């Protein structure tokens, strides 16, 4: 679990290198799918294009290396094996974006929005970004924030509602979700935006519930 110092390494003093913003912009474009239909070299800025295709079999219109007409565990195994490249490519790129400071840039951009959007202080920015990547890291940092009294019990509960629905969004969406990207009729950024918007909406339902139904003195107990 991260210590108090680590949790506090969030404030406006955090230096974001300019590459951070470039990397973040790149990641947004790359995973957005806006260049997916592109015929020119610009298509290299699309995740699905770079992820490529497996070779096909006899009836190339339908069959991939998994063949046709499979079922059960064996079919599931081959199908899942086909998901690993997307998973490795996506997390490799996220790691590079993080290394260049892209996640720091996202954190910096999100921090001033936390109070108006969720009613929680900007200091929770790092925990929020971490929770998008790892459920365990986000929850651990949230606990540390509460134990250091940097957030109140109410703020912690609202924040937990945000994290609980679609936990580790980025990691899960890009690893497991990638299995379904090829079937989508919308760009892959759209479901992700819907998820993010509803996470915020859900946290505000919790905020409303705590404000209207739970009495203040009740929240301090336990």
């Amino acid at each position: 679990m991260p210590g108090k110092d680590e949790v506090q390494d969030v404030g406006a003093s955090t230096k974001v290198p300019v590459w951070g913003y470039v990397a973040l912009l790149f990641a947004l474009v790359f995973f957005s799918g806006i260049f997916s239909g592109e015929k020119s070299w610009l298509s290299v800025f699309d995740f699905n294009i770079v992820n490529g295709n497996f070779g096909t079999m006899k009836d190339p219109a339908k069959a991939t290396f998994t063949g046709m007409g499979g079922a059960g565990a064996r079919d599931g195994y081959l199908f899942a094996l086909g998901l690993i490249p997307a998973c490795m490519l996506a997390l490799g790129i996220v790691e590079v974006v993080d290394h260049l400071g892209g996640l720091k840039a996202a954190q910096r951009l999100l921090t001033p929005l936390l109070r108006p959007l969720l009613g929680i202080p900007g200091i929770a920015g790092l925990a929020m970004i971490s929770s998008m990547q790892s459920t365990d890291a986000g929850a651990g940092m949230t606990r540390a924030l509460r134990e250091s009294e940097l957030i109140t019990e109410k703020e912690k509960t609202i924040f937990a509602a945000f994290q609980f629905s679609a936990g580790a969004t980025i990691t899960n969406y890009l690893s497991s979700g990638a299995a379904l990207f090829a079937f989508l009729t919308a760009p892959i950024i759209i479901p992700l935006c819907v998820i993010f918007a509803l996470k915020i909406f859900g946290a505000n339902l919790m905020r409303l519930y705590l404000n209207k139904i739970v009495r203040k003195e009740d929240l301090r107990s336990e």
Partner: protein
Amino acid sequence: MSNKSLPDVFVEGARKGWNIGVSSVIPNVLMAFAIIQVFRITGLLTLLGTIFTPVMLLFGLPGEAIMVLISSWLSMGGGVGVAASLYNAGNLSNVHITILLPAIFLMGAQIQYMGRCLGTAGVQTRFYPVLFLISIINAAIGMFLMRLFA
């Protein structure tokens, strides 16, 4: 920023992807395909599909899609696997998958995350039911919204 070269950083991330793939994606998807196979052979899939047709129709989905939601609740990888399996068998179309995708995550893995998220963060247990309900509401709204984009 450390001095690691970008290819090294990429490989490190790709290795994380491999580990998630091997330890989570493959077992979860395999389980989902196996479960669907059992449900298909026993006729339970058709039965559930018939029962839930009216409810799922609200979201523009066939009855069988309920299996995706139930298995998502247990594990996101499982939900994705069930969706893929039903797609491969022709039970779900591209539009259906598009409608379902956000819901798989919004109400996903709640049983696991009860411990890993709520437990770790030390959320008071009396709020758990509300938190579960909010996630399910999120998933329902997600499906309605995706109908507009699908």
